[in-house]
């Protein structure tokens, strides 16, 4: 047999039928649902009197617009409340498991899926959310879909899809002190741009990737979509298997042994060919900070805001001018001199226990700078929150002046009350620095959890490699 990439293996396993132009009918093993992209899909099923084909493959929770404070009081915004209640009703009516707001297992779908062992190597995984690529860290074919596709998967467990092209991103060497998976993915996006991955499934390979924890791998795959790729992938190995062992949704006994045997085959063959390859030397990656309104607008923390006048490409130059105006920044300003108003530690990119530990290690014994109006820590799930509290991390944050919140997407996209006000500038561990993403008129700088923590204490960015 021809050598195959991991993507090829996963794709081919899920093809039900394939037409000559490469469009396949693809089988979906796991479907995560949330309140925002599902109501119209369930409504479509109701209107046509259709059932959910395999309800046991779906797992639902509300995460996007749930409050992160005083949850017992319910949701103040009547539309958001209706949407959350609608999800609960839909899950009852269509026999789908839902983790409600009072369930400790509730959280961001891309945190709770892996946490429950509901995402497994070899699966095809979808959700009505672009960051579904996160689950590719488990050697699963995982990608975001829209509401029409959510309805299609509910009704038929399948999707019509055009095959993607495999891209290899090979990273070898050791990451320097203070440099994380977040810095690695921001650095890659800075290199290939936010459209560099369009049409591709990116597989991350190399010794640096193998040395990452599952949480670091999830951070990496989570932002594949910010490079334009719908799919991010990492081969299954002992780190993957160790992470999954004993989790609630994983197979047991002899089935576990058989599964593990299969998972060990989920890697690209040695001489498999990719449509595009990028090589990164990990030792050259530095702590990164975005300065603009696209994740590709990113520089090392020791750098400065770039000058559009130096950019030869006209449309890029115009984009830089627009971004600098929105961000209220001047070319040549040192990144370390940008004063901040708020800090957000959370989101499907960086809200897992390892992220909170990394942030707490910086915060321990310190104080949030007087100039910071608000510093939020929002754990990715109720279980992450409980684990952090058992370790005393909540106390570390609270004593330093952070607010310790209930799990949800929160200030990543400002659908609940956690928002930036117009003109406020935030160091954020989330994934998008688009205009208004964290609140209309708000200004976002994307960073790692350790960088966000250090920025909260200093009131500005600092090179955490020197701490």
């Amino acid at each position, binding site marked *: 047999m021809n050598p195959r990439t991991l993507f090829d293996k996963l794709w081919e396993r899920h093809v*039900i*039928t394939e*037409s000559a*132009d490469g*469009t396949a*009918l693809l*089988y979906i093993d796991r479907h995560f649902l949330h309140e*925002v*992209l599902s*109501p*119209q899909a369930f*409504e479509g099923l109701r209107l046509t009197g259709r059932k959910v084909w395999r309800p046991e493959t779906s797992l639902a929770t509300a995460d*996007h*617009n749930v409050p992160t404070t005083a949850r017992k009081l319910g949701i103040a*915004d009547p*539309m*958001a409340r*209706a*949407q959350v209640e*609608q999800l609960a009703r839909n899950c009852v009516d269509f026999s789908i498991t839902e983790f409600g707001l009072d369930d400790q297992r509730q959280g961001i779908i891309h945190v709770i899926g892996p946490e429950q062992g509901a995402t497994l190597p070899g699966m095809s995984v979808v959700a*009505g*959310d*672009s960051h*579904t690529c996160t689950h590719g860290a488990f050697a699963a074919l995982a990608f*975001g*879909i*829209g*509401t*029409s*596709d959510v309805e299609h998967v509910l*009704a*038929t*467990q*399948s999707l*019509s899809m055009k095959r993607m092209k495999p891209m290899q991103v090979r990273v070898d060497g050791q990451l320097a002190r203070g440099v994380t998976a977040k810095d690695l993915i921001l650095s890659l996006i800075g290199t290939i741009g*936010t*459209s560099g991955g*369009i*049409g591709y499934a990116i597989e991350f390979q190399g010794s640096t990737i193998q040395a990452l924890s599952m949480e670091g791998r999830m951070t990496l795959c989570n932002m594949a*979509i910010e490079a*334009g790729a*719908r799919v991010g992938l990492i081969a299954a190995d002992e780190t993957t298997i160790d992470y999954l062992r004993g989790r609630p949704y994983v197979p047991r006994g002899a089935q576990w042994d058989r599964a593990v045997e299969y998972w060990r085959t989920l890697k690209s063959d040695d001489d498999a060919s990719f449509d595009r390859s990028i090589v990164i030397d990990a030792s050259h990656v530095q702590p990164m900070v975005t300065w603009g309104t*696209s994740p*590709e607008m990113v520089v090392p923390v020791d750098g400065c805001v770039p000058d559009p006048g130096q950019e030869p490409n006209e*449309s*890029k130059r*115009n*984009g830089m001018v*627009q971004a600098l105006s929105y961000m209220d920044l001047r070319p040549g300003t040192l990144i370390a001199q940008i004063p901040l108003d708020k800090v957000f530690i959370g989101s499907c990119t960086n809200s897992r226990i390892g992220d909170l530990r990394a942030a707490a290690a910086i915060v321990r014994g310190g104080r949030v700078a007087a100039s910071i109006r608000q510093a939020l820590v929002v754990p990715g799930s109720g279980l992450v929150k409980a684990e952090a509290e058992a370790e005393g991390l909540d106390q570390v944050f609270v004593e330093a002046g952070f607010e310790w919140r209930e799990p949800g997407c929160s200030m990543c*996209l*400002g*659908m609940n009350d956690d928002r930036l006000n*117009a003109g406020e500038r935030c160091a954020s561990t989330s994934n*998008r620095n*688009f*205009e*208004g*993403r964290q609140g*209309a*008129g708000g200004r976002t700088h994307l960073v790692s959890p350790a960088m966000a923590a250090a920025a909260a204490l200093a009131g500005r960015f600092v090179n955490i490699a020197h701490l």
Partner: protein
Amino acid sequence: MQPLQVIRSKTVVMASTNIDTDQIIPARFLTVTTKEGLGKELFADWRYDAQGNPNPNFVLNQPQSKGSQVLVAGKNFGCGSSREHAPWALLDFGFRAVISSEIADIFKNNSLKNGLLPVVVDEATHAWLIGNPGADVTIDLSTNTLTLPGERRIAFAIEAFARYGLLNGVDELGYLRSKLADIERYEAARGW
């Protein structure tokens, strides 16, 4: 979904690169449980000021944009979130096609399922369209051609399956349901 074959329209140009779905429709408008009426929130943060008044400098508020069905946008249009509210809002506003040199995958996919035609063209054609706002163009899906003024014809690619759905106004779910026997066979072979 309305069948779509030929679109004849003046273009509206938004030249910025990387216009993301948070600009097309900000997240605070996603708490709806229906698909209709999102056109009024299309590009809300660019279209209205903080008091909700139309921003006269924004292209969609200018008289020449009225009635246009074709949006020409900078590279990597529709990047970001998978919210299908983005094509719903564009369609509700009156657009039937988006032309760019690159269109983000999930947005493209969502558009095809709702009757909004994503047209990806080469850099030179894109540059001409960006530089000539208000150009009269014709998009013919039956021949996969975009015709610019002066009868300049440019071919564009579109997946055969999606094209069939758009031309006939056929919802994809009907097709998928016709494959349920294949799906069951697949499940049996995989050992459900």
